[in-house]
Every structure is written in structure tokens, then in C-alpha cells.
């Protein structure tokens, strides 16, 4: 086998995998809508209890000009909150890994932070900080940082002890070892934490929107729709919120893919790996 063939083979395999993924996603969506339709056909619920998929779809499209800017607003809240939470979660994990005393001291507080019912303190946050986007950002960050910290720290603590010993034998410097061995070694659990955080980020944003009752937001719009018995619109808005969460999840999966090329490619295609060496492009052995 030459290197070139290996590349070609894996590229084919990769596209086949992406294709399969899309196919299964579409299939599960079709099955879901069919089941929804079936429930209506069998039990004949009132439309204000369970609207049809058809009504739900049109409730969203007909109000799209109102929904779109609110959805963008919710997305922005998750963006800022997620970025803040991910950064906080990552740096906490690094500090807890590197400073053992800090790890012991902070662990109980980190666990306790998640035992606080966030719905209960959201109104307090709004009172203290004000009727603006910041309470929502804090809530999202509060939810996101936790899985990032816990997973990343586990990743650091489970690094191969023999590998760390080897870096010592090689005379590694502390931060160079962190950058070239410890951090890349924990990148997979880091992304696991980010994926969990991404899935929860929208929930946090909606909790924030609920507490900020004066703002115009996706939640307040849904609340109004509920009050006027527009169940189809309530369902549709729920799906919009879910879509934002899904979008985040897909973004993180994509980022994970880009950050870990060694998991799905036989060779590197970074310019630094390919360009700087004076190698001939020939793959034959001389």
C-alpha cells in the first residue's frame, strides 16, 4: 500500500460515513413526524392539545418575520454564554489539574454550583444585574462550564503515566509539555464536555429569557402564544429552540472534527508538516 492509496481509500470511506449519517438523520425525522401524525389519527386530540405537524409548520413559517430576529437573539445569548462558560470551564480544569490544592478546595464548590436550582435564582440575577442580556449569559455560562471542567479534568488526570514519564526522561519543560502532550491528550474529553454544554446551552438561555419578563425574546413570544391558545405556534417555537440547540451541537462536532485530524486521516495536510521539509512529493522510497 502506498500513502496515496491510503488517502484515497479513507476519503471514500469518510464520505460514505457522512452520507450514512445524513440518511439516518432524515429517516429519524420522517419517522418522528409519522409517529406524531399517527398519534393524531388514532387519538383525535383537540388541536389546542396536540396540533398537526402541518399546522405547526405553517404557524412557524407565517410568523417567521417575528420569529427570526428573536431566534437570532437567543442564538446570540447562547453564543456569548457558551463562549464564556467554555473558557471558564477550560481554565478551571487547567488550574485544577496543575494546582492540587486548588483542585481539592474548588471541587466541592463546583459540584455545589450545579445543585443550585438555576430557575430559582434566575429572577434574583435579573434583580441584581438588571433587565438586560447579562443575566442570561451568566446562566448559560453557569450551565456550560460544569461538563467542560469535569470532562477536561478527567482527561488530564487519565493521561498515560508512562507517556508523562517519557516526557520527563526527555527533559520536557513544564509548559511545553502542557502544550504538546497534556493538552492534545485531553482534547477528546474536552470536546465531550463541550458537546454536553452545547446541548444544554439553549435551556439556559430560555431560563434567562423567562426571568427577564420585560424583554422581547423567544420565550416571551412563546408565552404570549400560549396565553392566546396558539398551541401550534407553541409547538413550532419549541422546535425552533430545539433547532438552535442542535445547531450548536453540530457546530461543536464539526469543530471537534477539525481539531482532531489524526482520528480520521492517515496523513497530515498542515502546511507546516508538509511545506518546511525539503522532501520530494514522490511517495516512493529511494
Amino acid at each position, binding site marked *: 500500500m502506498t500513502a496515496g492509496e491510503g488517502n484515497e481509500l479513507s476519503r471514500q470511506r469518510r464520505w460514505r460515513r457522512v452520507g450514512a449519517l445524513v440518511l439516518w438523520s432524515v429517516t429519524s425525522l420522517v419517522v418522528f413526524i409519522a409517529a406524531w401524525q399517527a398519534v393524531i389519527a388514532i387519538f383525535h386530540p383537540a388541536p389546542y392539545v396536540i396540533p398537526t405537524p402541518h399546522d405547526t409548520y405553517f404557524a412557524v413559517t407565517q410568523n417567521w418575520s417575528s420569529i427570526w430576529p428573536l431566534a437570532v437573539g437567543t442564538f446570540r445569548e447562547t453564543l456569548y454564554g457558551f463562549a464564556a462558560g467554555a473558557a471558564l470551564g477550560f481554565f478551571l480544569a487547567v488550574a485544577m489539574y496543575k494546582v492540587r490544592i486548588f483542585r481539592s478546595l474548588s471541587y466541592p464548590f463546583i459540584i455545589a454550583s450545579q445543585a443550585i436550582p438555576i430557575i430559582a435564582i434566575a429572577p434574583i440575577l435579573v434583580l441584581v444585574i438588571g433587565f438586560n442580556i447579562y443575566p442570561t449569559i451568566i446562566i448559560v455560562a453557569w450551565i456550560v462550564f460544569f461538563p467542560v471542567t469535569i470532562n477536561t479534568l478527567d482527561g488530564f488526570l487519565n493521561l498515560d503515566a508512562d507517556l508523562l514519564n517519557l516526557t520527563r526522561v*526527555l*527533559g520536557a*519543560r513544564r509548559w511545553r509539555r502542557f502544550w504538546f502532550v497534556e493538552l492534545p491528550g485531553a482534547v477528546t474529553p474536552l470536546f465531550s464536555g463541550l458537546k454536553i454544554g452545547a446541548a444544554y446551552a439553549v435551556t439556559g438561555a430560555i431560563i434567562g429569557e423567562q426571568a427577564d419578563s420585560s424583554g422581547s425574546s423567544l420565550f416571551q413570544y412563546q408565552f404570549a402564544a400560549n396565553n392566546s391558545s396558539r398551541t401550534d405556534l407553541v409547538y413550532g417555537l419549541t422546535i425552533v429552540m430545539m433547532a438552535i440547540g442542535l445547531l450548536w451541537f453540530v457546530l461543536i462536532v464539526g469543530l471537534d472534527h477539525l481539531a482532531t485530524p489524526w482520528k480520521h486521516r492517515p496523513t497530515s495536510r498542515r502546511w507546516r*508538516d508538509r511545506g*518546511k521539509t*525539503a522532501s520530494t512529493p514522490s511517495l516512493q*522510497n529511494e
Partner: protein
Amino acid sequence: MGVSTSTVLRINGVRKTFANNVALAETSLELTAGSFTSLVGPSGCGKSTLFNVISGLLRPDTGSVVLGDRDITNSTGHVGYMLQKDLLVPWRTVLGNITLAAALTRKVTAQDRREAEENARRYGLGEFLHHYPGALSGGMRQRVALMRTLATNQSLLLLDEPFGALDSQTRLDMQQWLLQIWADLKKTVIFVTHDVDEAIFLSDRVVVMSPRPGRVVADIVVDLPRPRTLETLTDPAFVDFKREVLRLLHRSST
């Protein structure tokens, strides 16, 4: 052999105990520059303990390790070290792994990369320079691990069962490949193995160890001619050495 040959490594009365368990009884060894020495013995005979002391990962209870004229007891960064686990980092390419030691201590220079590439090409890794370790076979991975060890430019290499996980065919190829590199680069090698054939085939000297407590029971000079080839393995003199080592191993384990 005589006093005139230059000693590169001197292990003076090194002893190591773990929780009242003597892992390594007082041991002294001297290695001459450019020699190839194997340590053989059953599990628990203190081979790995001795390696960890030489590499500076473990602090001995007594004794010292002197490399050249420098006392390196309890200090790391003076020897090349390789284990049965290749310990390649999956996120760096073959070249990236070979230059890892440089990356961990300072900035990787164009010179480092050029040397890494030349060595990789010369010793059969030319096709795989930009491959990730995940795409390589076990034998190829061990070659990369040895290249990484060589790239540290240390004169003394500690190889702890580097071919232990390979199938016998690949292992034989790797042994000949290692001998070629050793002859080219004139390194001093200490090689740990369970495999008596491997120890005799590779070495100038076979040190037999026994467990509980780990200690040296015999030190045999293997004066088979070099270069050694497949025929060496069936040479009557080779078989005599093998009989002798097996006898020592068995006596010491009963």
C-alpha cells in the same frame, strides 16, 4: 577486553527497596562505549527498576549512576529511553513524533526537522513521514519510537523490551534493523528482553538477573562475529551460548 577500553556508564552499588521489598539488590555494572548489553531475567528481577534508576525517574536508596564523568543519579534528560509501549503521540505525524523531544525542550529548528527526515528516510520510514501513528503497523510504530529516541542525540540508549509486542517475523526484521543502526551510529545500548535468542543475537554481553531480590547472577561475553545474520541463529557457538544462558536462568528461578 581490558582496563584500557573506555567506560561510558558506571553503576556503583545501586540498590532500591519498595515498602520493605527489595526490588534491586546492590548492583554494579560498567559499560564500555559503543557496546551492546542485554539484561535477561524473569519478571520481578529488577530490570525495569534498574532502567528507571539510570534514566533518573527513580531515586536509588544507595549508590550512584555516572555517565561519562558526570554523576546523573536522580536526574533526567541524559539518556535515550524506549519502552515496549511505543508511546507515540497520536496527534503528531511521524516527523512530529521524531522531533518531540526537541519540541518539549525548545523550539524545533529546521535543522531538527532535516535530521529527523534524513534518519527516517535512511531507516525505512521515507513513505510515512507525514502519516499519523494511527495509520502505521506495530513494527513501523516501534521504528518511529526508536527514531525519536535517537533524535535526542544521547550516547546511551535504554531499550526496555522494545520488540516485545511484535510477531516473531517482524521482530527478526527489527533486530537486524536495530543492529544496522547501532553499527552506523555507534551508540551504547542496554537492552532488556525476556527472549534469550534476541539477547544473544544482538549483544556483546548478556547480563542474567534473578528475582527476589533482583540481582545480577551472571555476566556473559558473547563473542560471536559481526555482522550477525540469520545463519548466526543456528551457529553451534550461538546454541552453546543459549544453553548456558537458559541453564543460568533456570537455576536462578528455582
